[in-house]
């Protein structure tokens, strides 16, 4: 279908309808075609920095999250070449930071880890582990920042600035020294609050922004990506199997139990 408001895209041989003004990512999401992504998050302005959403648009590599739809678009996404780029980008993120998944409370719900699984990263990358020395800021009573796991996606910056109307986070430094800074000496001295959108589990894709006293609430097997591939919700247009959030379990009142009526021999008394 092509008219004043719509056009047709061809992605990996599949025809989908897009609204003019949408990005490739938005059009594909709506049509149930998942494009891998890390720095893009629903509700935030796209920034186009991680390049995991790279696709080939009429032969040129573009970032799907920032590229507007165009007429006669022929898009390649799930090809060996594009997935190789994505694999390299994701494995470099593992090597650039300090990712100790076995001790990380984001493990199982982490988008970086889930993306590695989706892309089938199991063998060693040719890159060395850089083992950077990065600080942990646990000054805030409800929030900790473990920069060792930060992938510089900037989602916290955009969430704090555009949704919360604060400016808790900002990039500082350049190149390999670039990192996330807070707008004071430490997080406790900013106006950050646990109720900020920036601190919600949807925003930080990894285990850098930590909500204190909430870690490890979901047992292994019941974490978001334990039973589904990242992107399955978009591909099937179905909700997730498991929640990203803690589900409040109704406490059982001991008074609800029937009185215990057995003696030591197991006989009813």
């Amino acid at each position, binding site marked *: 279908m092509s008219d004043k408001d719509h056009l047709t895209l061809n992605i990996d041989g599949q025809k989908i309808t897009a609204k003019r003004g949408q990005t490739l990512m938005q059009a594909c999401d709506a049509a149930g075609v998942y494009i891998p992504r890390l720095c893009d998050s629903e509700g935030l302005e796209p920034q186009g920095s991680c390049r995991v959403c790279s696709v080939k648009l009429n032969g040129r590599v573009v970032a799907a999250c920032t590229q507007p739809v165009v007429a006669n678009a022929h898009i390649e996404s799930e090809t060996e070449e594009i997935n190789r780029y994505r694999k390299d980008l994701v494995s470099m993120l593992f090597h650039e930071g300090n990712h100790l998944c076995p001790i990380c409370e984001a493990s199982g719900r982490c988008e970086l880890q889930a993306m590695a699984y989706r892309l089938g*990263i199991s063998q060693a990358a040719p890159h060395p582990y850089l*083992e950077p020395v990065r600080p942990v800021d646990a000054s805030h009573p409800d929030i900790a920042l473990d920069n060792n796991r930060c992938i510089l996606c900037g989602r916290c910056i955009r969430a704090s600035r555009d949704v919360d109307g604060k400016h808790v986070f900002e990039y500082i430094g350049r190149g390999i020294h670039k990192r996330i800074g807070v707008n004071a000496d430490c997080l406790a001295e900013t106006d950050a609050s646990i109720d900020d959108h920036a601190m919600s589990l949807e925003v930080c894709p990894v285990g850098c922004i930590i909500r204190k006293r909430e870690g490890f609430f979901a047992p292994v097997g019941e974490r978001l990506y334990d039973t589904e591939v990242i992107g399955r919700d978009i591909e099937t247009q179905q909700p997730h199997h498991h929640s990203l959030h803690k589900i409040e379990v109704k406490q059982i009142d001991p008074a609800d139990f029937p009185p215990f009526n057995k003696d030591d021999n197991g006989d009813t008394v």
Partner: protein
Amino acid sequence: MSKRKVRIATTSLAGCFGCHMSLLDIDERIVDLMAIAEFDRSPLNDKKTFTRRCDIGLVEGGCCNEDNVHVLKEFRKNCDVLVAVGQCAIMGGLPVMRNAIMHSEDPLRECLDEAYTTSKVLNPSKQIPNDPALPLILDKVYTCAQVVKIDYQIPGCPPSGDTLWAALTALIKNEEPTLDYALIKFD
């Protein structure tokens, strides 16, 4: 003459033995494994030295002391295919947490002080273990690939019995050990 059995050697360096325990999680498939393979140097049979060259070496744990480095080099010398098993061997795992104090001027001293002198863990003598029989601790924890050439890695902490089985059977068949989605885990 019948074909000889595949020779496998295993070792645990700076690991918790969880990866070895996980190997036992292949359950009754161990009977099939023993029909085609035999273990040489391995804590599973308590053989402390190589009796001959092995086809596959499975290494659990990274290197945190000089003995780990020595054993790892022996494995490289005596095994055709050397596999890093588990996150400790691949990226240092839990022991590598001590590398986080590398910002210190004297990281090893700070680590030992934290463990033995200043910590609240009961250690009345406040002494840092210094018996000549103890291997010297390294300045930091090294991954296996930082010390020798590693051919393949099997991720997980530990990799599940199914993951180990899939990788091991592929290696025995001389194939690339590619893992299905459900078998790739980093924790």
